[in-house]
């Protein structure tokens, strides 16, 4: 028995990490633990009003709506109204409270699960819809794992990327492609932080050299210099890179101050992926040890 199990795992990559059961989902106003096989299928980046759709291979699993309101709403009454609209006046479904959410999770499989809450600090009214009611039901665990994401430091975890950044930074551009995912965050001053993940690293012609990989996959085409090496999470080997940017051109290019670009790029051999985080800002505004804010999945 022992020898057969050894034989079964002989072909596997030795340092491949075990797949976690849950993954963090962080977006505007919310931070949740969702099943690890769920992925973001559709998103909106407007903090005032939007929707996030999650799904797995069988279809949609969760939809979250948010809207920032100026008047304090009554989430319970709103949820009762939605439930009444769905079930009709005859059927009554119980509404209970869990971790600050008013939730209606009917036993019937033909009704979606619904939950609603109001975050007084950010003024966000949140609705969660669980369209598919199947066993085992993860709704309670998802709602229990909720944390508001409106503090000084905010978590952004979606599309396989996971980073914690100061509140001033918000997603400005998202590229959720199958083998390369990136999110560019910007603050009101125009300073940017870009987090990118590249898969199938061993099959790329330039996958061995992180500096070349970064230079080929970045939007700006500026000379990049290597400045050092580091270990991410004390295990993942990486390099630090630097570049400078100025104004776009013409007079602006002559008088614009120089901004520093700093890049931390590292590889995760167990998952055959590479990550890099790129910060472009004036030197006095650069965040130190930015790579430590990134979690690898």
């Amino acid at each position, binding site marked *: 028995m022992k020898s057969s199990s050894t034989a079964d795992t002989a072909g596997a990559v030795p340092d491949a990490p075990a797949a976690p059961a849950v993954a963090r989902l962080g977006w505007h106003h919310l931070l949740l633990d969702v099943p690890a096989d769920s992925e973001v299928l559709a998103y909106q980046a407007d903090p005032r009003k939007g929707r996030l759709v999650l799904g797995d291979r*069988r279809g949609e699993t969760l*939809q979250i709506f948010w809207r920032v309101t100026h008047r304090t709403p009554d989430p319970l009454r709103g949820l009762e109204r939605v439930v009444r609209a769905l079930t009709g006046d005859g059927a009554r479904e119980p509404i209970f409270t869990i971790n600050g959410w008013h939730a209606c999770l009917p036993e019937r499989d033909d009704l979606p699960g*619904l939950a609603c809450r109001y975050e007084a600090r950010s003024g966000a009214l949140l609705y969660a819809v669980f369209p598919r009611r199947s066993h085992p039901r993860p709704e309670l665990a998802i709602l229990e794992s909720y944390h508001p994401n409106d503090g000084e430091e905010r978590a952004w975890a979606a599309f*396989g990327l996971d980073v914690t950044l100061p509140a001033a930074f918000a997603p400005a551009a998202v590229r959720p*492609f199958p*083998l390369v995912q990136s999110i560019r965050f910007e603050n009101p001053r125009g300073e940017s932080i870009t987090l990118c993940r590249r*898969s199938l690293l061993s*099959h790329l012609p330039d996958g061995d050299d992180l500096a070349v990989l970064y230079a080929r996959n970045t939007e700006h085409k500026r000379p990049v210099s290597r400045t050092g090496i580091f270990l991410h999470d004390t295990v993942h080997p990486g390099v630090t890179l630097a570049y400078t940017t100025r104004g776009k051109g013409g007079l602006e290019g002559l008088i614009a101050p120089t901004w520093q670009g700093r890049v931390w790029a590292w590889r995760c051999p167990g998952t055959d992926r590479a990550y890099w985080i790129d910060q472009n800002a004036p030197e006095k505004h650069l965040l130190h040890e930015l790579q430590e804010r990134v979690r690898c999945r």
Partner: protein
Amino acid sequence: MKTDRQQIVNAAIRTAMGDRAEDVEPSRRMEDLIDWQMRSLVLRAPSAIFSLRPDGATVVVPIAYRGWRSLARCLFRLRRERRYALDRLSAEAVELFDGRRTLGEVVDEFGARHHLTFFEARGALLGFLHPLLRKGILLLVAPREGPLGGGAALGPAGGEPLTERAHRRAGKETR
């Protein structure tokens, strides 16, 4: 039916959040499409000849000339086949499409080999499946029941070689 219910849920929530009724957008359901895709069968075209190499594969696809073109082929000694070189990853995917496994099973296998999630593996495979179908290297047999119909082979009809014109069109589209 599911779509109707989802639309009702979205409409009810948006109304509860203070939106006007006309702002409600219909929700697109992907379950049916993904399920239909994943139940499809992909196999190598019988007329294509594969030879695997350590760094990839070579595929030779015959060209069919019909009508006056067959005469032109004899007169001008036009080529009878097209040769494609596949990189290591494409060759690995083509090897997985053995005609016994559905697309869903191949996606799972590919994802497990390369530590990719389902959607990553599906996106990567579908990305190079399309040009290989257009070039007549692979065949896709869709299930009979599904959102787009099916029951027919997509790619070279019945595994017959593509015409020279179809080859040229496929080359232009995927260039």
